[in-house]
């Protein structure tokens, strides 16, 4: 089974804003952070100006271990977006971090054929440098 060659993909580049900057700064340093509500302890992703559980604005980004589980996934079989055509079919996985239950992160499953994506599979974070500004958190099967 062939693995996707992600080097062939021209990924859209994330544009950090005031709220999301800490996430991307941490990723550049090889650290995965998730937004955490100081008031109620809720973890959420993507980051948002308010806590979606209690509406507090007292939110901070806290580091997590990077270990997690594939909570959901699906495959993309259709090259509707030409930039991703070279890697079709590929898996889009949704990871729930061990340390931040309830937060769901979109990622690709790197270093494995897409057939390895299964609900409940253990994964760990790796970092994919896109350019000098942006490093993308990704996941691979846990060793």
């Amino acid at each position, binding site marked *: 089974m062939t693995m996707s060659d992600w080097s062939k*993909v021209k*990924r*859209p*580049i*994330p*544009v*950090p*804003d005031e709220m*999301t900057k800490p996430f991307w700064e941490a990723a550049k340093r090889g650290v995965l952070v998730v937004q955490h509500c100081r008031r109620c302890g809720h973890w*959420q*992703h*993507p980051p*948002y100006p*308010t806590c*979606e559980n209690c509406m507090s604005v007292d939110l901070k980004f806290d580091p997590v271990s990077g270990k997690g589980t594939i*909570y*959901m*996934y*699906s*495959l*993309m*079989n*259709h090259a*509707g*977006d030409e*930039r*991703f055509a070279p*890697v079709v*079919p*590929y898996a*889009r996985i*949704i990871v729930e971090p061990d340390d931040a239950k309830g937060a*769901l*992160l*979109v*990622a*690709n499953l790197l270093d494995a054929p897409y057939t390895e994506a*299964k*609900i*409940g599979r253990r994964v760990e974070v790796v970092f994919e440098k*896109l350019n000098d500004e942006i490093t*993308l958190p990704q996941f691979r099967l846990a060793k």
Partner: protein
Amino acid sequence: MWNNRCKVAVSGVGFSKKTRTDEVHLAEHALTAVKAAVEDSGLKLTDIDGLATFPELRGGGGRIPLVDGVSHVSVNCMLAMLKLPNPRWHIQGETVNIGGAFQQAANAILAGVCNYAVIWRAMHNRRAPYYGLTRENAAGPRQFSEPYGFSGPGGMSIAYMRYLELYGQQREKMATLAVTQRKHANKNPNAHFYKTPLTVEEYLDSRMISHPFCLYDCDIPVQAAYAMVLTTAERARDLKPKPAYLAGYGQRMVYNGEGMIDSLEDWMAGTKSSAPLTWEKSGLGPKDVDVAQIYDGFSSSVIYGLEGYGFCGEGETLDFIQDGRIELDGELPLNTFGGSLSDGRMHGIGHLVEGVLQATGRAGERQVKNVEVSFVGASMTQATTFVFVPNPY
């Protein structure tokens, strides 16, 4: 039970002639549908004094330019076209999709602030790649999904995949839903696929779009408008068609924040929060339902409706739909007009209209026998639920 049950009724429905894309512009579709609904009721356009709609202002993921009358049909647009002599009330919903606009119109009729309200939903399908991504950068909440190639059918496919693996089910069983609904559409002259049958083999052989969705798990985008006229039960009884009395309704009460990933559990929580309101108002339950329209923008949406509204247990849908149970002469005829899958992507107004037609014996060749209770679950994300009955109680 609701004190106002069966005090509001749908007196007429209307359609525009579907086009695949915008060769006929949307305002024209909407006007045609509204005029047809008014005529179906036996009214004159000048009788209309209430307007309700939900225009999709973030269509195509926010990538379609907003032009009133072209990409959506607002209340402004309809007022300009109709030039009503006596407009007295309107609403243009921002949440709860067309089901919500319908419910607002029902409330207005009950409050006595207008006599005859018309509700329309106009769906735009531009001639362009559907939901295509084109930009070099990903800003806003999309910065966390687009770089990974996650968009379009991704949002719903992931929850369906979780459902299949958690319950040890097979996506192949969904063929029965797609094929049965297509059979229903083959009896619906208004359906996009009226003249096109579908076999189980074709479903199983079709190309995958976003596994576990194949081509026939996705609804067919069209450009069209449907409309309905709502009035009091008394006034409806003086009009042409048999009234469809509104016995109860509900809305989804549980939501995620914007931009959050919806999990399987979120979809289920949404539908589960809506139906109890309808059962409580109507004093009825799933076992009383003779025919059901359940939103099917993707085939998997039917799962969250059937299970969340209480028609079958969790994890059971793919077996529940087998053995003719959802056919016109089955135990629970389902999406008897073809659904969004085979009638066309209309975001729930197709389900509402069919619910009314089935309740009043006007569904032609696809009419289910002896309908006393007609259930509608419209628009997935808003999970608005309704019960229509031919005999008020």
